[in-house]
């Protein structure tokens, strides 16, 4: 690894020379800005990063970074990233995908990358719409949503990225949001630090085809009521005056008002390190408008990694005697004709 001078990298060192082609006001800009901000902090030179994306507005992302990149085909980024990472485990590999790219056509690759738990970071820009194809509903669109392809309202029950990721036993799962730049940056840092597949859902506003989809979580007036910021080891508290909390009633979360009988200690405490993902799953089911939506790191645990396990096997095999071409050709029963 070339170490020369990378400790003085700045965000601008990660900017490519390409014109950015998102609509003015698109949430993607902010995600790009935060990414460029945190990358220099990771202690790796620009050339060690590879960004892989599929197709969609979000998937334009790699062009705007001065790293290596693949803007691939629709839905396949996790599979391509698997090849990149296994091909050269020395690289820091990032997948950028959309709710259509990652959960519709690419759902299977996403799940399989997650379950293999190889050391890549997957950023899913969820704008609950197909942006690039100009506004059809996506797998994360709400039931009843009217779009170009659902003029009478969508009849597809939506998928929830975090629930699916936990169903696939993800070792790192988090949610953050385009406009919450500090939290976004911090979440990206956490994802980068995780060893294994880090899955991050990023709420992203598509101001052209689905404007305001996450207003409930971004609007100053209401966001404190509608979101809940997870902190490891801390109770689940939210509200403008942090006056409300989440308590467990059997297996069900319920909203309670703090004060009076109810103390912080009665609340559900977040444990991102819980070996069992059941808590994380339960959190993933807290959804607007019934519940405040948890933001932050749902789960962060260690588990065997596909990439390192494979390398271990190779190293073990080579330790017993590295392959020689000569032997390979002459294997098995041979005979000589004079």
């Amino acid at each position, binding site marked *: 690894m070339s170490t020369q001078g990378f400790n003085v990298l700045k965000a601008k060192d990660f900017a490519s020379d390409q014109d950015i082609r998102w609509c003015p006001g698109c949430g993607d800009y902010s995600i790009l800005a935060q990414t460029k901000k945190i990358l220099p902090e990771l202690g790796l030179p620009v050339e060690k990063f*590879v960004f892989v994306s599929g197709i969609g507005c979000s998937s334009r992302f*790699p062009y705007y970074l*001065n790293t290596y990149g*693949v803007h691939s085909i629709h839905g396949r980024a996790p599979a391509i990233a698997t090849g990149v990472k296994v*091909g050269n485990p020395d690289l820091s590999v990032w997948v950028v995908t959309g709710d259509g790219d990652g959960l519709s056509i690419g759902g299977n690759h996403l799940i399989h990358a997650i379950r293999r738990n190889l050391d890549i970071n997957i950023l899913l820009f969820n704008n609950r719409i197909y942006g690039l194809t100009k506004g059809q509903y996506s797998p994360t669109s709400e039931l009843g949503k009217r779009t170009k392809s659902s003029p009478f309202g969508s009849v597809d029950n939506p998928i929830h990225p975090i629930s699916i990721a936990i169903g696939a036993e993800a070792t790192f799962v988090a949610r953050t949001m385009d406009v919450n730049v500090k939290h976004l940056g911090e979440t990206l840092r956490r994802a980068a630090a995780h060893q294994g597949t880090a899955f991050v859902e990023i709420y992203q506003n598509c101001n052209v085809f689905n404007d305001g989809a996450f207003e409930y979580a971004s609007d100053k007036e209401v966001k404190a009521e509608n979101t809940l910021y997870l902190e490891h080891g801390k109770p689940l508290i939210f509200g403008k005056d942090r006056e409300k909390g989440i308590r467990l009633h059997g297996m069900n979360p319920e909203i309670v008002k703090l004060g009076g009988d109810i103390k912080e200690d009665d609340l559900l405490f977040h444990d991102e390190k819980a070996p069992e993902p059941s808590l994380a799953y339960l959190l993933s089911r807290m959804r607007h408008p019934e519940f405040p939506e948890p933001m932050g790191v749902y789960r962060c645990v260690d588990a065997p990694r596909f990439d390192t396990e494979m390398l271990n096997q*190779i190293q073990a095999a080579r330790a017993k005697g590295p392959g020689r071409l000569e032997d390979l*050709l002459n294997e098995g029963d041979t005979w000589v*004709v004079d």
Partner: protein
Amino acid sequence: MKANTKEPSVAKPVQSIEQAAVRFAGDSGDGMQLCGTQLTTSSAIFGNDISTFPDFPAEIRAPAGSLAGVSGFQINFSSHEIHTPGDRVSALIALNPAALRTNVEDVFDGGIIIVNEDSFDKGRLKQAGYDSNPLEDESLSKYKVYKVPISKLTRAALKDSPLRAKQVDRCKNFFALGLVYWLYGRSMDSTLQWISSKFAKNVDVVDANTKALKAGYFFGETCEFFTHQFKVPKATLPPGKYRKIGGNEALAIGLVAAAELSGKTLFYGSYPITPASDILHALSRRKNFGVKTFQAEDEIAAMSSIIGAAFAGNLGVTGTSGPGLALKAEAIGLGVMTELPLVIVNVQRGGPSTGLPTKTEQSDLLQALYGRNGECQVCIIAPASPSDCFDIAIEACRIAMKFMTPVIILSDGYIANGEEPWLIPEIESLPKIEVKHPEGGNGQDFMPYERNADLARPWALPGTPGLQHRIGGLEKEDLTGNVCYDPENHERMIRLRAKKIATIALDIPELTVLGPEQGDLLVLGWGGTSGAIRSAVERVQSSGHSVAAAHLRYLNPFPANLEAVLRRYKKVLIPELNTGQLRRVIRGELMMDTIGFNKIKGKPFLISEIEGRIMEVLSEGSGQ
């Protein structure tokens, strides 16, 4: 026939023959593939030329005794050079009525049929569709039929074995094999060794199989029914060290060799599919060569993964069969646009759709050529025989890395599963594969789509400082590789990509012919039909006809002299296991008509079929 193993053994007369084709047939669970492989090995070690043809049903294990469940293995061993497993068989070993029924037609008149008499009971006869017992009526009168109570004799031989009855019965294939060993005077050594090492963990099984094998052998020796042995002398093959090899195995070894020769790490991303899975199996054992195998979730992921691996600097290879190739199409297109070195192995099987998954066919040529959106050419090459898979694998990797392009290898089920002796090459004789990666720059003026004399773009690897660049599926700007919607650039790039593939023609050997340089007829083949074509042509040549054979290893681009060669003959005959795909391409490409000979039965050509067609064509009026 009454078996009598008690009498003292006496040496029987030995009849020397040039060649024998033996077929084992029985239930899928009867171990027929194993018998075949063992006889193949011992014949190969003995020094015969060999060629094999395993033939199994699509079911893992269809109902015992059913026609659908019959599994066969044919081996041709010979004292002269051979190129096919043989049109018909000199000896059929049929372990049950269904096996007899489905195979008897292929036995030479006067040929040997050994049946397991014990299995010819009413139930199984009926299952096989026999109204009367063929062992008892006249229907087999033109063959030499040996009714051997193989089950009983095996049980007798193993009466002291601690194994359970079911396990004992499973040894009957070794009995049959022993008998065949005796019949052709084969040494049991290699099989005895194999048994001891294979079942090392279970001494009872070693013991039982050993006993069964020997019992079969001694039965032949002693039983008065068998009047003489056969002997197929060693073949006079080119000198050198040999081993027996099958197509998939050779392909796997070839890929590992290509990685070694180029100093690259082999990344094999694949999803299992018959008949390509064995390549994955073989490579997954090669961790000591640093081979990375990735069993992907599907073919699309497999193809995508090798694009990623190739971008990262590995030698990216995937393997599949027809339906899988269809699924890979879109990602292969990305490979074409990103101009990465990628090798795609397609082991063809009977189509369309799921088709005949365990049978062979050559029906994916057009798919390989055109099965992608847009103008999207790749290089296509095809092996001629099992051992040629080794060379073709190296060649594919060489071309892929030299020209920065996807290369499709069109193997087929017949080649993949067939075996033949392989003259082990000297390492020095293998092609050198030079790979250069650009070494870093200042990050500004690197041109990821600048081309060298071969029109290949640089293979710049992530991790290299200053060469950061982005690739993708949108049209690339010439030189810079930036996304570019410029109309002129698009046309230029389409033509450049096509020209790059065409340029490969300058880098590959010219087409050569076997036989007269010009004449009445050229028989042109590609892929696994090579052996049958060659043998058929040799036969008609020997009867004085002006016929030559040529084999096309390169299907896109064609060798530069293809047209010149073809035009030197009055007629050109193209036998193919499809409806005439190469013929169609040649018409389109060269505006030249040829005569098609097509078989789409899931089976390879017989030599006699091609010979017959050649004679027909020769006798038909002139003109194409």
